[in-house]
């Protein structure tokens, strides 16, 4: 075997440098041609269009915006509602009293203020009187009751009685509303999340020392989602300290038990793109092992909420893998899986483990191994064309492909074979029993395929940048 290898290497050395030059020259032409590909220009144009659309999206009148905001506040907040109505009540009572007791209040203004009237100059006019009545109203409404001024006519007193009785109710309601708003806030925490923001986001259940590193890598990749919800019962302060500054990420923390269905629904799991379940160290002492049954339970709950959600589970104990497979987890990560391999490679192929270390651990922004979409015009082409495209266009090394394999579909598998009766019976019975006739889509990788390997729209490229 080794001899053969040596022979091969020997043959490679025989290749003349002039031959290599011609190959490189040929590739240079290819590079120039690839640069002329309309796809790239089209892609750039699309990106520009999107940006323009973004800026022109919301251009409504600023007053309308303020009104909408206030209206929203009025509808949502009980406290604002009561406050608004009490202000209306105060204004109505003030107006009524100003009319009924105009003389008394006008005289009282003169007594109190002396000669300097803000609105009427040397004589108090109706605005001064109104303001004075307003002062009386507030004093009465807040139950302070200075008594510096009070109605004298029977009608005025009668109106005051009605106002004070109404006021009794308003003050009680207002007090109650303040209390209820405070209690409601205490009960729900302040995590009534804005539903519109969450679509195609990432939900991470569980907290351990890996989370900050995971988030850092996601932050570095411009194409990844920037909305992240963390669900775990670790103290919010600890989480705040654990999370360093991220450039893009918008992180929300829900401090609740993630095995509960209601908690996962609160994280809008049905709209999430990916759900990551990690061994949860919340509330554990340093030597305690996380409870991995929670991971399996959470996976089951998540799949019950949304069958299509991509669930990635991380387990420390390989025994849980079969449970997770049965719970339909899309990807299962076992950290120690690669260790024996790496150790052995130190002996058999020195350099390979170091290569992995550099590749994975020291991944920087826009460096390292990445998955990128293949331009539409290249779909259907052979592997060597695509490889050349990335090499000369971006100087990336194409190492393989991630292929989204459609799940197994019983319907497709059965086709038109056998009798239609049996087929329809199988379909009816399985659907009746709640068994989905198709299994989930999953990703497989194709590493360094042969040159004529054909690429379809299910492929995306894995490149070394």
């Amino acid at each position, binding site marked *: 075997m080794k001899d053969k290898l040596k022979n091969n290497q020997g043959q490679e050395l025989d290749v003349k440098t002039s031959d290599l030059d011609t190959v490189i020259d040929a590739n240079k032409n290819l590079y120039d041609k690839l640069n002329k590909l309309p796809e790239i220009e089209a892609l750039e144009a699309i990106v520009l269009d999107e940006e323009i659309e973004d800026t022109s999206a919301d251009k409504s009148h600023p007053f309308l915006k303020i009104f909408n905001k206030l209206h929203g506040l009025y509808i949502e907040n009980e406290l604002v509602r009561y406050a608004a109505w009490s202000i209306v009540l105060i204004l109505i009572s003030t107006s009524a009293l100003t009319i009924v007791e105009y003389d008394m209040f006008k005289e009282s203004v003169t007594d109190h203020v002396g000669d300097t009237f803000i609105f009427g100059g040397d004589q108090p006019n109706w605005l001064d009187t109104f303001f004075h009545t307003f002062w009386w109203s507030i004093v009465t409404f807040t139950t302070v009751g200075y008594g510096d001024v009070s109605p004298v006519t029977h009608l005025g007193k009668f109106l005051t009685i009605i106002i004070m009785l109404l006021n009794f109710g308003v003050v009680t309601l207002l007090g109650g509303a303040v209390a209820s708003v405070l209690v409601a806030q205490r009960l729900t925490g302040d995590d009534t999340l804005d539903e519109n923001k969450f679509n195609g986001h990432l939900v991470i259940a569980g907290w351990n020392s890996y989370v900050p590193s995971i988030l850092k890598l996601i932050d570095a990749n411009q194409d990844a989602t920037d909305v992240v919800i963390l669900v775990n019962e670790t103290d919010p302060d600890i989480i705040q300290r654990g999370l360093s500054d991220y450039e893009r990420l918008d992180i929300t923390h829900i401090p609740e038990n993630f095995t509960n269905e209601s908690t996962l629904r609160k994280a809008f799991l049905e709209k999430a793109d990916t759900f990551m379940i990690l061994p949860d160290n919340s509330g554990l002492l340093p030597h305690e092992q996380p409870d991995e049954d929670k991971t399996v339970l959470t996976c089951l709950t998540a799949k019950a909420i949304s069958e299509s959600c991509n669930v990635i589970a991380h387990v420390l104990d390989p025994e849980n893998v079969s449970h997770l497979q049965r719970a339909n987890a899309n990807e299962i990560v076992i950290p120690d899986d690669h260790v024996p391999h790496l150790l052995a490679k130190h002996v058999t192929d020195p350099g390979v483990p170091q290569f992995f270390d550099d590749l994975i651990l020291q991944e920087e922004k826009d460096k390292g191994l990445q998955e990128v979409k293949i331009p539409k015009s290249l779909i259907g082409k052979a592997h060597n064309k695509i490889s050349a495209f990335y090499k000369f266009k971006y100087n990336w090394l194409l190492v393989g492909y991630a292929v989204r394999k459609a799940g197994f579909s*019983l319907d497709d598998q059965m086709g038109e074979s056998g009798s239609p009766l049996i087929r329809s019976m199988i379909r009816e019975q399985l659907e009746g029993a709640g068994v989905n006739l198709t299994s989930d889509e999953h990703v497989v990788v194709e590493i360094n395929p042969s040159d004529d390997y054909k690429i379809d729209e299910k492929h995306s490229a894995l490149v070394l940048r």
Partner: protein
Amino acid sequence: MNPTAEQIQKINHFSKVPLDMCKKIASAVELQECQPKKALLTEGDTGDTMVLVFQGQVEVSKNMMVKTASGLATSRKPIIRLETTDPPPKSPPITEPTVFVVEAPAFGIGEFSLVLDDAIRTAHVHATTPVQYGILTLEDFSRIVKDNPEIGGFVYFEVAKAAVQNLATASADISNLTQAFFFALTR
């Protein structure tokens, strides 16, 4: 009354049999009429007769164990309907077909009885329109074949063809069922 030799020849299994021999078969068959809903064959019975349908429509159905809201239950599932085209049925069927309707000039059912002594009926067959039919017994057919051995070749070839086709469908069904079984188990 006996059917004519031409009527016999319209039936798939006898299509290759020369007219003069069809006449001999016709003489062994008595023409009968029945009303809709009449059962012509019952699943599970043993029988040594083949039913020749000259005019009308029949429905073939099978008993199946299915899971319903109230648990497991046996229900009769229609599989296919067969209808004559020459002549067509006297009146439209009493119920609308829920399954595929296969049309043929005339057809025979229970043809395996011409091969086996005590063939077990594999499905129910009942009339969905007034049906004109005749019954050919194994005994009569065996006698005719004994006297005219060449008839046997024509008829048994057609019976064998039907049997082979059934076998192919059945093995596809088994493969589908096996797949469904594993699919359900691995969920």
